[in-house]
């Protein structure tokens, strides 16, 4: 049931106001989406260069030449930074969150549309600034995406540590400000603009995930901003927050007394919640899709909500597990270790609830569902190595090896990317009014699933065998040389996986213009975005204010005319 409104907001006219500096959350969501799509291809290209260099370190590449070891470190730094900030943070929250959060709660727009536009364009400026780092004297920085001091704090520490590092820090600071604006908007919108009947416990799990992610962003990005300002001061104003007494090339620098560990504490206080900022929206969309395509209510809705809240809360208490190598007190390490393993409990609750949702469901194996199942698979595969690394005694052995690279790529990288793919295939009909090609989608899924496992699972074995990460080549150390065949296999797997992404891009753009027309509710789903036109009008509901009478996952309801009840369907006796 919906109530008609007397006023129907009209979309602004003119290309600039409609598509460039738009205040419409849907347009802004698409802007974020395409920014992230651009960024992911930049990041992927950088990873391809790294994989090529690891296998053929002396190869001469067209236009690039031979990749030098310091260039490898620059590629590593920029790959990590672009992927973490401009893909994994931008696409799920900025892209899909912006587009669908207001619609899923029955609001006509975000709470602060101008702030929303500013948030996107600030993010865009941040992306441009970081790309500029490639083209300045000395090139891009080489201190890794974690920016560990004192390497990141000393312009004389390496070729990329001059202007390139300043641009890197500036870009991150800009991104922090953009993310804070976005988080503020998400929280206010969720708390204040829900339609009648959309109580907190009727919100789709996607909305919960964006909401909790926004809380994490609000509390975490401010800390990174502070840390970045201190780093800029150390680099440019002669302060010594992070830099102890240092000698570079025989020259004693003016710094003294600072602590590199101070940077690590501040960075990881942001850095670990950032992991959940990347993965929580993926959890939300996976829950949404598993329920829809299993034609069953989500198993344990409240438990899912509380599990996400627990994960978000615990995420702020475990940053020290990234620093077991720093010589911290064993008592501190013990505390961080126990707290880290505690996160396994809500994570397991979520996993079993996903399996419970699918159990005995009438599963429709369409592409969004495949990616949601893939997300669960990767979440388990990547997550299970987490408790290993949470043990200080094991982490000290594995910390600087490929084991960690394999772990965080599976859990934070690929799983989150699968969440983005699932969301794209699921919401594409609503966003563009057409269906994506199923055959191409499935082909893309199976190659990507096999390819990513082929790339990242062997990394665990390499790590256990002692292969060090961040090394640009392994040809100079005897025991490392023996592991090169596995690295070669991973590089070929990367070729295939990256090639498969062009299937996705072709499917995306071809379907945008030539795909079959989508109905308003092609997946027979229940949440509010499927009650409105495809694509949604400027004010989302065409001058109608939705009224919510049902929960978000009412599938297989006994006695219902269809096997699903939409959130706006008239209330029944069972509803009350």
């Amino acid at each position, binding site marked *: 049931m919906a*109530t008609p*409104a*007397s*006023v129907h907001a009209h979309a602004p006219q003119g290309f600039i106001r409609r598509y460039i500096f738009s205040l419409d959350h849907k347009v802004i969501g698409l802007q974020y989406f395409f920014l992230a799509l651009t960024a992911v291809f930049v990041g992927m290209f950088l990873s391809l260069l790294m994989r090529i260099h690891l296998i053929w370190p002396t190869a001469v590449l067209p236009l690039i030449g031979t990749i030098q070891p310091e260039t490898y470190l620059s590629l590593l730094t920029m790959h990590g930074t672009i992927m973490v900030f401009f893909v994994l943070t931008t696409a799920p929250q900025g892209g899909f969150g912006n587009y669908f959060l207001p619609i899923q*709660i*029955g*609001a*006509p*727009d975000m*709470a*602060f549309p101008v*702030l929303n536009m500013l948030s996107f364009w600030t993010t865009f400026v941040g992306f441009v600034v970081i790309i500029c780092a490639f083209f300045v004297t000395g090139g891009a920085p080489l201190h890794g995406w974690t920016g560990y001091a004192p390497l990141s704090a000393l312009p004389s520490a390496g070729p990329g540590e001059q202007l390139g590092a300043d641009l890197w820090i500036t870009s991150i600071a800009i991104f922090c400000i953009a993310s*804070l604006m976005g*988080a*503020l*908007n998400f*929280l*206010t919108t*969720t*708390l*204040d*603009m*829900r*339609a*009648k*009947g*959309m*109580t*907190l416990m*009727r919100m789709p799990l996607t909305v919960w995930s964006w909401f909790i992610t926004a809380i994490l962003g*609000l*509390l*975490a*990005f*401010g*800390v990174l*901003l*502070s840390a970045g*300002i*201190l780093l800029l*001061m150390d680099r440019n*104003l*002669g*302060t*010594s*927050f992070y830099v*102890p*007494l240092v000698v570079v090339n025989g020259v004693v620098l*003016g710094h*003294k*007394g*600072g*602590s590199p560990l*101070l940077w690590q*504490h*501040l960075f990881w206080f942001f850095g670990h919640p950032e992991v959940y900022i990347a993965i929580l929206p993926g959890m939300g969309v996976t829950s949404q899709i598993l329920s829809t395509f299993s034609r069953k209510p989500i198993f344990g809705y409240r438990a899912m909500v509380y599990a996400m809240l627990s994960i978000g809360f615990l995420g702020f208490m475990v940053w020290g597990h990234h620093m077991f190598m720093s010589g911290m007190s064993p008592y501190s390490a013990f505390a961080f270790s126990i707290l880290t393993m505690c996160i396994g409990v809500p994570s397991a609750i979520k996993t079993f609830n996903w399996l419970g949702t699918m159990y005995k469901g009438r599963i429709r194996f369409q592409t969004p569902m495949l990616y949601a199942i893939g997300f669960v698979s990767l979440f388990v595969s990547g997550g299970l190595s987490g408790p290993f690394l949470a043990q200080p005694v094991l982490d000290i052995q594995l910390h600087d090896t490929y084991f960690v690279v394999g772990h965080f790529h599976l859990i934070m990288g690929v799983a989150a990317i699968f969440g983005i793919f699932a969301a794209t295939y699921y919401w594409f009909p609503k966003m563009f009014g057409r269906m994506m090609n199923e055959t191409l989608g499935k082909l893309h899924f199976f190659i990507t699933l096999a390819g990513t496992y082929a790339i990242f699972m062997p990394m665990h074995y390499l790590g256990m065998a002692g292969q060090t990460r961040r090394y640009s080549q392994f040809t100079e150390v005897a025991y490392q040389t023996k592991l090169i065949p596995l690295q070669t296999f991973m590089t070929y797997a990367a070729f295939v996986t990256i090639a498969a992404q062009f299937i996705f891009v072709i499917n995306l753009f071809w379907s945008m213009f030539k795909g079959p027309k989508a109905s308003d509710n092609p997946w027979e789903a229940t949440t509010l975005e499927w009650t409105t036109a495809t694509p949604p009008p400027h*004010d989302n509901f065409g001058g109608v*204010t*939705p*009224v919510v009478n049902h929960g978000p996952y009412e599938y297989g309801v006994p006695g219902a005319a269809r096997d699903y009840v939409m959130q706006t369907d008239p209330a029944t006796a069972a509803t009350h």
Partner: protein
Amino acid sequence: MATYTPSTPIDHIGHGHKPPMPPAGGGDDGRGGDGANSGAPNYGARLRRARLGLICGLATVCMVFISLTSARIVRRGLPTFDGASNSYVRDWGRVDLPWLLLAINTAVLLVSSVTMEFARRQAAREAALAPVKSIPGVSLGDERSFPWLGITVFLGISFLAGQWLAWGELHARGFFVDTNPNSSFVFLLTIAHAVHLCGGVIALLWAASASLLRKPVEARRIVVDITAWYWHFMAVLWVYVFALLGFAR
């Protein structure tokens, strides 16, 4: 000319009494959106939303200053290696703060917080009476109002000027941002606070010029209200920063 005689004591509006607000929270009140059912802007909802957004923004500001404080505490306790004595020594150093100047600045900011509160209540009163004033031929008598907003802007800019003088005084006493870690944090925290206060001043200037820009009085009231709470927070934050720099040396 007719004269409006209110049936309720309008003098009480904005004098400590909360202005009428729509029901809070989403989900059950059916408001949907911003004036979705009437076509007119729902300023009450906008105000509530803006206050909520402000709380979120202040949480972030808190995190920034908490992280800077924790960095200061950690850095203060760190030893550095001294080659001359071949031992570890503390290099925290001392800073001779211009106490009198900073105390005056503190007083100016606290007074500005009071004037800001008067400005906020004045704006709330004006917004509440706006519909009455719009009735042709209705007059509410003496319409001149005390320029609390202008005074607050003046005091805010005075505070910033005072801080500028304080930084100059620190320079004159030989303390720069890189003199020692203590001085680094003095400049960092005071400048960070000043930058945040600048945001408040800009918002107030916008509010002060709202009538020139023909903005509705209700929209101006929202800006003044939000800036007022932000301003009060900045005053409290300054007291905290001043105490931190002064007493945790």
